[in-house]
């Protein structure tokens, strides 16, 4: 072997050795939990109004963070110490609460916060958006569990029929990233849940490089967040939801996991919970006698509403059914997403209900 060959061999061997040593050191240290709490938000940059999530990362100055501790650390909730005059309301929920299609200050919680409603005891309602896109009650329960450390006076949990679909529980990136906790919650609810088991490779730098990259991107995006307040790509066309519907009426109601709600509410413990059935788009197009919208057949949704109302009464939950509270003209893109104006009208309704319940 010539000098050149030896040089190449040495370079490759050294690179391999360094790569292995770095992975071993990383495996031992496991820096992700530490990094979750290390954030530029609420310090160098203002805290985020809502959890970081992105459909189009290149355009939105946002990435989807799956690790909840990192999400909470960069949320404005973590940067605001609770004062005696604050009535803290934390919103769980899906993309309709998170505010798909709308700016961070156009969401339902942001609107309720702006209203600065006073409680009978003089405290002011401060609302925080802890929702995350895609309906998923297991993911909501995970967020609820982490949110309890932030001293909520009230948890608001908007759900829809799809939130309770067991089959979709394991599809959330947040559920996958908190798999041990998720399994624990599912077991408590008596719901079978199958998640991929973690192995030793998942703890190496190589396996976690994408998570680390996302964390870094999230920190870097703080500057754009401070400068513009943009955290989602604005869509040019606010298209209405599907008007004419298919005649399909099937819906697997055996997939609906009400026990997840019972577990979630129980987990809230001393923090009062207001459960809300979210507004849905009510189409008047073709086959609207069979379906309410592209998501829900009438029969299945009516059954769900009746069962949820009955469960709420039986469990003595505070429950608000807002299924038809938003006029069809206010919906955009899907059967669950509505305009900032509609969000504000719902916020007023919820605000009044919160005040009334306290009297």
């Amino acid at each position, binding site marked *: 072997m010539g000098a050149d*060959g030896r040089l*190449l061999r040495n370079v490759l061997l050294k690179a391999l050795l360094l790569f292995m040593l770095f992975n071993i050191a990383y495996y031992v240290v496991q820096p992700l939990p530490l990094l979750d709490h290390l954030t530029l938000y609420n310090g160098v940059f203002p805290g985020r109004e809502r959890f970081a999530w992105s459909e189009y990362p290149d355009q939105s100055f946002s990435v989807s963070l799956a690790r909840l501790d990192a999400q909470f650390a960069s949320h404005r909730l973590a940067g605001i110490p609770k004062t005696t005059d604050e009535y803290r309301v934390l919103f769980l929920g899906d993309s309709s609460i998170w505010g798909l299609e709308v700016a961070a200050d156009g969401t339902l919680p942001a609107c309720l916060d702006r209203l600065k409603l006073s409680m009978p005891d003089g405290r002011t309602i401060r609302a925080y958006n802890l929702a995350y896109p895609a309906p998923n009650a297991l993911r909501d329960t995970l967020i609820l569990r982490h949110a309890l450390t932030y001293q909520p006076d009230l948890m608001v949990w908007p759900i829809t029929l799809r939130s309770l679909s067991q089959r979709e529980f394991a599809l959330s990136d947040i559920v996958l990233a908190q798999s041990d906790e998720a399994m624990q919650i599912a077991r408590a609810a008596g719901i079978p849940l199958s998640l991929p088991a973690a192995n030793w490779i998942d703890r190496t730098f190589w396996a976690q490089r994408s998570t680390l990259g996302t964390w*870094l991107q999230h920190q*870097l*995006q703080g500057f754009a967040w*401070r*400068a*513009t307040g943009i955290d989602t790509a604005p869509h040019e066309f606010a298209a209405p939801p599907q008007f004419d519907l298919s005649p399909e009426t099937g819906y697997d109601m055996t997939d609906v996991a009400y026990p997840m709600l019972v577990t979630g509410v129980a987990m809230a413990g001393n923090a009062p919970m207001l459960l809300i059935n979210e507004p849905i788009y009510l189409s008047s197009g073709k086959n609207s006698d069979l379906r309410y919208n592209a998501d829900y057949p009438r029969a299945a949704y009516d059954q769900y509403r009746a069962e949820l109302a009955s469960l709420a009464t039986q469990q003595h939950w505070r429950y608000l059914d807002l299924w038809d509270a938003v006029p069809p003209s206010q919906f955009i893109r899907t059967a669950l997403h509505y305009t900032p104006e509609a969000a504000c009208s719902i916020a007023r309704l919820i605000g009044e209900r919160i005040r009334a319940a306290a009297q």
Partner: protein
Amino acid sequence: MTTVLLWALLAALSWLVPMRFRPLSWLAISVGALYTLQAPGPDFATVTLLLIVGVWWLVRRDPLTRSDQLALLICAGIAFCAAFLHGSAVTLAIGLALTAASGTTLSTLIPSEMEDNSTHRRLAVLWIMALIALLVTLKTPALVSLSRVTLVTPNLSWFGFSYIAFRLMHVLIDYRNGRLPSLTLRDFALYVVFFPTLSAGPIDRVGRFVPDALTERRFKARYLVAGGERILWGLFRKFVIADSLAYWALSPALIDPAKMPRFGDLWIMLYVYAFYIFFDFAGYTDIAIGIGILLGLTLPENFRRPYTRANIAAFWNHWHITLSTWYRDYVFTPLSRTLLRANWPPALAAFIAQLGTMILIGLWHGVSWNFAAWGAWHGMGLYVHRRMLTQIRWPSRLESQLWFPRVLTVGGVLLTFHFVALGWVFFALPDLHSSFAVFARLLGIN
């Protein structure tokens, strides 16, 4: 990233090909890259092959060689594959034409004693004008939008055409001026579409590239080590540094003239943009040069620490070097000479040549008022610098101080950097309205 690694792998594997076939193997990879990287839409990759054959036909001195015929067959084979994959009749037809051209009949049709003549020179000018017209069409957003609206074609992005056109024009101009060396079709085609330089240059010169590509080399491990090192450095500069800086860099998404960012934030965005664009571009160049080294070639450098230069002329001698020297040789120098020969006052001739060249450099990036303004900004800067060189005389007591040259250099570097950075405002934003709004905020006017 995957493309880069694939190219690097192919480059390394090309050492397994016998030396006499190695340029052909590089051509095959290059034409393959041309087809795979071309966005769906018109058959621009095929048109590129046609342009190459057309220009070569004009500038040739010798008939087709055996390796040229093989080159044509390889191009035709790749075109057939593309035609099969995309169902393109045009590409199929061109593939057939290239196959036919590779036949012995055509080589006998082309006389071997082709000499430069005035008809060919005139044709070269027509080719140059056609290439400029194509370039302007592809670089004008309004024309591109029009093509989408009229459904003539949904996509007018021609992969690497800015560089391909400038290589072709360089060859045509040198041919017209009688400076072009004899080129085989294979070598000429390889020069135009050489795969490491397709996406971001450098714009090599054919007289330097071809002898380098044809030099007989034996495999040396140091090619892999040095090339790999340069590629890794390029990947780091582009995908780690530049892509991270992109989040903080001035961009249309961050600028709303009605709701301008704060003064300090805007300066941060501007500084970050200056470094973002450098690392982005220089990273790509490192990758191209690194792949060149893997193949045993020495591609020209494009960036040599441009932000450490003490004046704007030095900056342009070290920023996108192959583009600026292209313009210097083919626009600035001929234009200056023409104006001086026409008895224009030297100062005015220098001003017009400087400004015109820089505006054209701006328009090379895209035909818009902003790119023209960016070019004009630099043209003015270069002119003022040139005038200052002859006008400014420092007091002798200052010049005699040991610290004075150092202060002058540091001050020059800072001043040049800020001048260049402010110019990036035009480059980064899409219209003059938002550019001026940003300028006003940067200068504390609004």
